[in-house]
């Protein structure tokens, strides 16, 4: 399997073409923007946080298949999680795409992005939504 085939799996292309949770979220409690200066990709992440849990997560923006599918799958995965659980997922996702560790089972479909670890040029695409998530949680938390 070529590096390309490893990266652009069916799952990824489907999420990229028809992203889940795409569009603004009415009644969001936090909204943060993210930029990937290396290619101009953009994301706006909307979270509705209720009783310390992510009740809903949506996003808008534009970008490559990697960043779009990552945002799509992430917003699926974090729904219903506590903030700490979401941060733990972020840690595991980054361990996979940055450090090249095998995917944690909790990541589900996101394991399709594990090929990114071999393509340093694309790590920032994969983590764009997750960095926005981290920032959103930071802003949402009473400090």
């Amino acid at each position: 399997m070529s590096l390309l085939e490893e990266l652009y799996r069916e799952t990824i292309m489907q999420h990229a073409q028809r992203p889940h949770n795409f569009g603004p979220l009415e009644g969001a409690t936090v909204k943060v923007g993210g930029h990937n200066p290396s290619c101009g990709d953009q994301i706006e992440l909307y979270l509705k946080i209720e009783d310390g849990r992510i009740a809903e997560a949506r996003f808008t923006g534009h970008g490559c298949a990697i960043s779009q599918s990552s945002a799509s799958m992430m917003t699926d995965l974090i729904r219903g999680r506590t903030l700490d659980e979401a941060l733990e997922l972020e840690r595991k996702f980054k361990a996979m795409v940055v450090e090249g560790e095998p995917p944690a089972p909790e990541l589900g479909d996101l394991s399709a992005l594990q090929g990114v670890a071999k393509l340093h040029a694309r790590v920032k695409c994969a983590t764009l939504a997750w960095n926005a998530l981290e920032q959103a949680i930071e802003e949402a938390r009473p400090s």
Partner: protein
Amino acid sequence: MFDPAAVKRDFPIFEHHPDLVFLDSAASSQKPRAVVEATVRYYEHDHANVHRGAYGLSMRATEAYETARQRMARFLGAEADEVVFVRNATEALNLVAYAWGLEHLRGGDEILVTEMEHHANLVPWQLVAARTGARIKAVPLTAEGRLDLDAFATLLSKRTRVFAVTQMSNVLGTVNPVAELAAAARERGALVVVDGAQAAPHLPVRVRELNADFYALSGHKMLGPTGAGVLWGRREALADLPPFLGGGSMIEEVTIERSSYAPPPQRFEAGTPAIAEAVGLGAAADYLMRLGMENVWAHDRALLEYALERLDEVPDLHLYGPRGADRGGVIAFNLGRLHPHDLATALDERGVAVRTGHHCAQPLHRRLGVAATARASFYVYNTPSDVDRLVEALLEARKFFADWL
């Protein structure tokens, strides 16, 4: 005519990456052995700080540095004392924007740019406009990607204090009729600032014939080291320009409260310059002059024509930029609905290096109606076989992503 295959052998990077098809010279070029060696020789034989040394080594360093200035002057058809060494085109443009703009711009004044400017010839003007109350206007583009000359004539008014324009677009490849536009703008009393970052490496520039006040270029795009570029200024324009960066070597007399300044070009070179980098840039200019800039341009043009012809064979490929003699060796494109970043990864897998994104030209991309493009650009070491490899890789990518286009 020069032989690109022979030229390529002057570039060590292709020895270390024999399969590399490098199509990103518009971002930064590779370096010939002569440039790397000039840098090493300088450090190992001649280095000391310039200008202020009373000993032999420092004089040798000063001579090497000033020889580089003379070479850049020759390259541009200018005088050595009109050549200011800076880091890159970006710094050159900021220098003019700050030094001239903070001194002369007022509320109600207009700065005329174009919709195809690189951020380097736009953001500095915004920063200075914000401090002075001046406003920015932009010459729009035609559907082919040329400047709209009628709109230019309308936008140019007596409020126009600055006209800032690129000689060649880093996305569309368009070569603008700078000498004509500049003459019109100067007649209206505007300062003319030309961004030569893309043009200077690729076509013969006689800077006096452009009717400009200032001309900016980056050494790293013309075979030189990173960290060195040039601001050329007409002698009178430089003489009238107040200092920008303050510090050593740009002064005459300093008291705690105030200072008087050295004449150009020293006035604009505060602190220890990028000496080895200037020396390397001088070597790059020499290398290019030996090839002959007419030949470099002819080579770029021939590759461009060949590439446009071959790329027309690729289905779903959308090409940007004008078709005509007024275009250099830069081709921006998109393949169907595929994001260029994904396309570039596929090309990279086949050893073809292209750049993707907004290429520091967001307003232009907004005008083109896309967030990003992929871009291939040519230089002296590229060959027709590089074009063939690009086309093959595009056809493969198209096959691979077929279901998703």
